[in-house]
């Protein structure tokens, strides 16, 4: 396959615009359902109404729905490796920035200067993964939510959490309670049970690619049950949209597991804000 043409760059630029201005259908549906659950006139209802109106306006205008256009992470099918190269993706990011779809949002961590086109070594983040289809998926995650991601190491005496699924449940619920509304609730959790520290975060974030109604990989019944339990229990914490109280603290919980070495047992929680921007594009 040929390396990317200008046509590919243009399509990827549109992918970035769509992702930044339009929530995925499943997330918007979940926000609408949440609004029905909240009492009329409550802070929760007012916040959810504001969020939904904001999303409708951003979609209509094709402008960013949140000013923090976040970290851009592309998941590219391995078959597209030679065509959708990191350079092609960078061209699209630079073009999208020029068109105002992205804020100047990329800072050198050593000298503090801004990469005004949002491109640098490691930005955007690109993963080549087996997807079984020639697709590119973009996830945009804001800094406020990223700051709320957490990693636990079991056993954790302060939580009374041991090395079993009961302990895992305690860690995840603790993460939700500690986050309060600060990650821009209602949020979505991506969780990895096990793995090493680095793959824990990687796999936890990958779970954020899953539509909210999608079951765990291989139909794992234990994980499916844990996802349901945590979602129900977290929504009884009463944190609510933007932390002002209410019945909707989370929109979804997505969990995967990875093997671990006997000495380690990590539970990694990636927090995604309500502005869960993810979008897929197919390349034939």
């Amino acid at each position, binding site marked *: 396959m040929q390396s990317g043409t200008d046509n590919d760059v243009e399509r990827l630029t549109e992918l970035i615009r769509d992702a930044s201005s339009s929530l995925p259908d499943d997330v918007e549906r979940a926000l609408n359902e949440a609004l029905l659950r909240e009492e009329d*006139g*409550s*802070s929760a209802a*007012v*916040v959810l109404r*504001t*969020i939904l*109106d*904001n*999303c409708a*306006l*951003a979609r209509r*205008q094709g*402008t*960013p*729905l*949140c*000013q*923090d256009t976040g970290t851009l992470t592309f998941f590219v099918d391995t078959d597209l490796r030679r065509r959708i190269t990191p350079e092609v993706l960078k061209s699209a990011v630079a073009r999208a920035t020029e068109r*105002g779809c992205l*804020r100047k949002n990329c800072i050198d961590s050593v000298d503090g200067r801004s990469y005004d086109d949002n491109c640098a070594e490691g930005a955007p983040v690109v993963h080549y993964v087996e997807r079984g289809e020639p697709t590119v998926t973009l996830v945009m995650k*804001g800094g*406020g939510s990223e700051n709320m991601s957490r990693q636990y190491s079991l056993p954790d005496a302060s*939580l*009374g959490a041991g090395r079993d699924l009961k302990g895992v449940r*305690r860690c995840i*619920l*603790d993460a939700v*309670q500690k986050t*309060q*509304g*600060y990650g*821009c609730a209602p949020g979505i959790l991506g969780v990895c049970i096990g793995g090493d520290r680095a793959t824990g975060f990687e796999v936890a974030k990958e779970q954020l690619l899953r539509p909210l109604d999608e079951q765990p990989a291989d139909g794992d019944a234990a994980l499916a049950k844990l996802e349901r339990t945590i979602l129900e*229990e977290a929504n*009884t*914490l*009463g*944190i*609510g949209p*933007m*932390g*002002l*109280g209410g019945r909707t603290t989370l929109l979804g919980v997505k969990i995967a597991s990875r093997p671990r070495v006997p000495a380690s047992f990590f539970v990694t929680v990636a927090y995604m*804000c*309500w*502005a869960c921007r993810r979008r897929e594009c197919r390349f034939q």
Partner: protein
Amino acid sequence: MVELRYPFDEGQVRALKAGDAVSITGVIHTGRDKFHKFFADGNRIDVDFRDGALYHCGPVVVKEGGEWRVKAAGPTTSVRENPYEPAFIAASGVRLVIGKGGMDSATLAAMERHGAVYIQAVGGAAALSAASVKRVAGVDYLEEFGAAEACWHFEVEGFRGVVAMDSHGRSLFAEVASSSAARLGELFGA
């Protein structure tokens, strides 16, 4: 929805209760980290905040055809201004502090003493908050603080928020933190 119009009357502000939804119309001034530091360093602020509103916001503003246009104007996290806000409230006579995530008990006490409230704007709702800014009436400290931290004077119409800290010592953030901790304890006991 309670309609608030500049100038914000002390009686009306004191009547607000935590949880009230509000819609703000009139001028609001942005000020964030550099603005607060500047004030704390003993500099005179040349903007009249009496019965006014301070918005913790780092907007994206561009000049188009000689006019300032607001592209995004969502709230920034307020907690960084905790060390400065009680003194600012006392000195400036500001009535509405608008931001995200709430502020500490010292700020809550200053609000009770001087008749001010904290309004939570919806984090991330950038398109809507930009649309509610009808005109940029001016800007101060643009050279000194840069565009994202300058003191912009926005004329807003129907800017939405929720009173999260009132002038009666109530903070929804403190209440939710404590009730959710209690509920977590119950869930852990189950």
